[in-house]
């Protein structure tokens, strides 16, 4: 018995084959990405750990030591690889920049979504997006020629330091935090606004008590995202922070961050030596921190999702 419909169903059609092909392609693409990420993790981790395994540096000493001079040894014969100054420097600039940027970003986002009409948003949106696209070396250059002299004239000293770094990072993360905050405010359902207005709440009460509240997970994500960006920013910070390997005792004295030490030191050390391995350890800390930022973002996202 020869039934053509039967036959056609038993063979794979062209469309079905194409579908398999497409699936394979996208699977391969994902596999490559996963492999690259895994390889980077493995490479950085193996290099970073060798400071502790091969060179015998105590991990705790590494985190809490305050002298960074991988080329020489201290009085006790141990290598001088204390990363505390950079860890503190990184955290200070990141947290300060986020603290300054957050109110500005929220205010700007509220203005764009709730106050300015469509016209205002039309002008502001490209401005914000343009700020995101400016290369960090330009920010650093402006920081060097404007912010550093400004800090110097007001607080004295050289002008280089955590404060200058904070200002530059504040401007750099502001657009990121703002545009993500705008997105989360926009995603507040319209009916929340209506319900609030209909209950005789004023515009400010509606924004403050209803819109900001329900957009809070999104806003927190925006802030953490901005912090992740600030933490990882290298060039612009390196240009204005002064690059002194000392534990910062003031906001206006030169300091350094994990990233600035990396960019400064990478070209000047030989693979396999302690000074090179120590830099990898710093890179490992950076990688771990960005992983933690990512987890925090996920956690906030999940938490926000559960209450909805």
């Amino acid at each position, binding site marked *: 018995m020869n039934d053509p419909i039967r036959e056609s169903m038993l063979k794979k059609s062209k469309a079905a084959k194409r579908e398999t092909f497409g699936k394979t392609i996208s699977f391969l693409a994902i596999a490559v990405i996963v492999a690259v990420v895994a390889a980077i993790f493995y490479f950085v981790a193996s290099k970073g750990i060798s400071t502790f395994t091969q060179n015998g540096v105590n991990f705790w000493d590494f985190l809490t030591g305050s002298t960074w001079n991988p080329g020489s040894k201290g009085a006790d014969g141990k290598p001088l690889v204390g990363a505390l100054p950079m860890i503190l420097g990184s955290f200070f600039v990141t947290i300060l920049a986020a603290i300054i940027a957050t109110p500005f970003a929220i205010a700007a986002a509220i203005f764009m979504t709730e106050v300015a009409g469509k016209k205002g948003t039309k002008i502001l949106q490209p401005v914000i997006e343009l700020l995101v696209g400016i290369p960090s070396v330009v920010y650093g250059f402006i920081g060097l020629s404007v912010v550093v002299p400004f800090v110097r004239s007001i607080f004295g000293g050289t002008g280089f330091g955590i404060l200058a770094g904070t200002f530059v990072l504040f401007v750099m993360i502001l657009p990121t935090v703002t545009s993500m905050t705008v997105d989360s405010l926009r995603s507040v359902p319209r009916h929340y606004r209506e*319900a609030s*207005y*209909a*209950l005789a709440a004023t515009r400010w009460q509606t924004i403050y*008590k*209803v819109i900001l509240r329900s957009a809070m997970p999104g806003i927190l994500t925006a802030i953490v995202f901005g912090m992740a960006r600030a933490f990882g920013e290298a060039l612009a910070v390196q240009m204005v922070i002064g690059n002194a390997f000392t534990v910062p005792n003031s906001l206006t004295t030169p300091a350094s961050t994990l990233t600035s030490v990396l960019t400064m030191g990478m070209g000047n050390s030989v693979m396999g030596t302690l000074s090179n391995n120590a830099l990898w350890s710093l890179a490992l800390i950076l990688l771990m921190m960005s992983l933690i930022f990512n987890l925090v973002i996920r956690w906030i996202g999940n938490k926000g999702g559960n*209450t909805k």
Partner: protein
Amino acid sequence: MAEKRLTQNIQKLDENKHEIALSTKDLHVSYGDHEAIHGVDLQFERYKITALIGASGSGKSTYLRALNRMHDNIANTSVTGEIYYRDLDINRDNIDVYEMHKHIGMVFQRPNPFSKSIYDNITFALKRHGLRNKKQLDEIVETSLKQAALWDQVKDDLHKSALALSGGQQQRLCIARAIAMKPDILLLDEPASALDPISASKVEETLMELKKHYTIVIVTHNMQQAARISDRTAFFHLGNAIEYDETRKIFTRPKVKLTEDYVSGHFG
């Protein structure tokens, strides 16, 4: 755009016999160049339920939302004409819309509780208006939930998220939230259309109970619902109020052909 007046039969209420809670005179609503409501005159009697019926796009919801100026915050929308509440034209710039909203409450088509607890949903507006006394707040929460026929189901869960409630419960919470403000007038925009029949009938029961204390204007797609709960019905068509009369007259002996076609199911 020219006005499209159609044959109309609008019953005028005798102000000596009936207490008018809210009325409109020549109310127009336009979105940009498009006029959606072409001059509507209606009067709403105190402590009665008035239903606004009509096909989709007939303008009944647009009209309802104009009554408490929900169009105010929307660009390109203009509302002209007069809306009388307590002998005051509230469609004027010198009216404080926030104050007005305290007296004319609204419940929307989709249940829209805030993502807060049941308790906080109801006290939200009260707190915004300066009521801080915990005992008073507790009392209002209880009475308004009781009036909305929700108290018995939620009294042990007042501090749980309102979003955990079923759709019908959420809508009754929204009604409770609106009446917690003790408004004069309650506007409802298809409050039962997103609900299953059982929840819908619960909401209807709630409204029948509420009519003792509130003047209710309700937009509904559901003609049985209008027939069941309303005292007066206005039929809307293409941005006009075509016929307005006692509900039983609208459903049994309408005077305009269009109304008759609509209520007998020939269109819409």
